[in-house]
């Protein structure tokens, strides 16, 4: 379950050591934008040691490495893969070939470490026009890819448009990424909302992303985590409906019916699948029912 993914600057001890307490489902240790070129070496070591010595139970770890067009990314992987983060976030993914390049090197390191292939997953950060257009190919480029991730700040620069709070300029990219990710059978995460002090704005933005089909949303501020978690959790009505669906299916099966209807609507396979996902999430959040 990754509703919220919180960026932590990779060379700032004060943020890293408290990362697991900030309420997000996952933290993203950032070796890229948050770290100056002169401190890349220090950040790599600090992130590696933070993962080694601090307890991140109950909070997934993701490392944003530097892009494959930089001299840093392989060393980043050498340093952090032994700690087995849950995921690697690959910035500026533009093509399926970018994924394959990173994938091949990750496989090599995994072999060296005696780890099974694809032990550590890959999330493709889509933040260029090229990446958006290639989204489906990127999402299907390797079984290692577990999600797409929209980065709107760099994308709008590439699109030569202004990044606004209303976010109409990224609507196409958002819907395109959701469709591509779902078509490829992977998750999809929305870009952070960058106004740290706008408590209403983050809620509106998260609700919109949820409505479009995003799995979760990234954040650059711990202050946004709680709202994101709330928005991306199933509501009580969602949960109740999911149990109703499953109950209707059970009764239908008992009675040997081929087709089952609930509230005048046919229950088909996608509705059942969604109900199962909702119930699984509710149980993870402690909102599930005991008998189920």
């Amino acid at each position, binding site marked *: 379950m990754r509703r919220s993914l919180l960026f932590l600057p990779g060379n700032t001890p*004060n943020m890293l050591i408290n990362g697991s307490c900030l309420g997000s489902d996952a933290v993203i240790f950032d070796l890229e934008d948050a770290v100056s070129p002169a401190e890349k070496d*220090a950040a790599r070591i600090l992130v590696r*040691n933070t993962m*080694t*010595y*601090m307890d991140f139970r109950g909070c997934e770890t993701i490392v944003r490495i530097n892009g494959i067009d930089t001299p840093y990314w392989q060393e980043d992987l050498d340093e952090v893969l032994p700690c087995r983060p849950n995921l690697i976030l690959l910035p500026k993914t533009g093509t399926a070939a970018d994924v394959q390049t990173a994938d091949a090197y990750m496989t090599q390191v995994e072999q060296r470490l005696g780890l099974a292939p694809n032990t550590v997953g890959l999330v493709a950060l889509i933040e260029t026009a090229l990446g958006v257009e290639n989204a489906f190919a990127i999402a299907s480029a390797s079984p290692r890819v577990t999600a797409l991730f929209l980065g709107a700040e760099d994308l709008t620069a590439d699109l030569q448009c202004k990044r606004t709070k209303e976010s109409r300029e990224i609507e196409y990219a958002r819907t395109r990424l959701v469709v591509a990710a779902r078509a490829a059978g992977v998750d999809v995460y929305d870009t952070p909302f960058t106004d740290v002090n706008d408590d209403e704005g983050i809620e509106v933005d998260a609700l919109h992303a949820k409505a479009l089909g995003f799995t979760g949303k990234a954040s650059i501020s711990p202050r946004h985590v709680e709202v994101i978690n709330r928005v991306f959790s199933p509501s009580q009505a969602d949960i109740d409906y999911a149990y109703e669906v499953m109950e209707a299916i059970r009764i239908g099966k008992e009675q040997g019916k081929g087709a089952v209807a609930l509230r005048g609507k046919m229950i088909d396979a996608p509705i059942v699948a969604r109900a199962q996902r909702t119930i699984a999430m509710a149980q993870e959040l402690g909102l599930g029912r005991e008998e189920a």
Partner: protein
Amino acid sequence: MTEIVRSASAGTMESSDVYVEIEPGQAGIELRLESVVKGQFGPAIEEVVREVLDQCGVENAKVSVRDRGALDCVIRSRVETAVKRGRGNT
């Protein structure tokens, strides 16, 4: 054995961080420690600094550690970074 061939530093003076400086030396590890929690953690900090130097194969160096309440994992990181920045090309 890792030889320190140039002065190097790592870390910052921010809260929860530590600033480590390393210089070439001849007389084993010459360690100078300042810490906001020296009374409570002085010996523990010194031990971890020496442990990391040992793991990195550093036998001779002047090391100055200015600690702002860093956790062990941060101290380990900054010492290791300073060594890597100060050692000869290997």
